[in-house]
């Protein structure tokens, strides 16, 4: 396999992961190639997120005005816990 072919293969895996359609076995393969999820998002993931926002808008999907109150409260508690545990 040439370097170009290998890059193409990795790019295809990254594309499929960003699309949410990467089988577990290939997810593992991507991890062994140094593209584990949890690291800084790659450009395909950013592109998928941007496309998601754009499509949401073009489809005129309703987005709630606010979070449910109980969930918001949980998130604020979680933030306090995380920020308190950080040395600042």
């Amino acid at each position, binding site marked *: 396999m040439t370097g170009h072919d290998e890059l193409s293969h990795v790019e295809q895996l990254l594309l*499929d992961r960003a699309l949410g359609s990467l089988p577990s076995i290939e997810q593992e393969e991507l991890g062994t190639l140094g593209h584990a999820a949890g690291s800084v998002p790659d450009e395909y993931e950013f*592109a998928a997120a941007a496309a998601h926002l754009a499509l949401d808008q073009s489809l005129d999907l309703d987005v709630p005005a606010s979070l449910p109150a109980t969930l918001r409260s949980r998130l604020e508690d979680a933030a306090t816990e995380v920020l308190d545990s950080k040395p600042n």
Partner: protein
Amino acid sequence: MDASRRDPSQFHILTSIDSLPQGEAPAERELTLLERVGQGDRAAVSQLLDAYGPLVWSIARKQIGAEAAEDAVQEVFIEIWKHAKRYDSQLASEATYIATIARRRVIDHRRKLGRRPEVEEVPEETPDTDESLESLELMDEARIANEAIAQLRPEQRKVLKLAIVDGLTHTEIAESTKLPLGTVKSHARRGLERVRTLLQERRQAGEAGV
């Protein structure tokens, strides 16, 4: 709705000149909400939840249902609180960055649940809609993505929407649309590749000052 929630750029503040290292030329730079959270700014936490909470909630609820979405949203924001300092505004806007983390977590949850996403609309729990989303989308990469998507053929656009918004896998899209699996993969990959290329070109043009 509070007008201050409509434009997250209002939440940016200027760094204090006093905080710059001695000898460094004073330069004013806006801190993003994420950077402020990274510095432990509690007010920024609340503002960030106002600005992006509904977006993350919407992404999660649509793909994995309200019950599972609560846990997913909490995981998304814990990741954001923990790693806010990693955010690089040169790579993506806050909206895109946060949507990226949300999508990643939701995809993980969906995989764990082994659940096929619901393609139909999810009823709203709250009657009002967030007008800030429109301004968010128009001001960053989403606008560029929209241009790229507009250049796609209708069937490519449909496949991309089913993959990205509805969260269907390639196989599920093939079943749903009756298109061959190879065609679905090709449409989805080309569509996303087109978006990425256009984003890359715009960023490079921006860096070059074009």
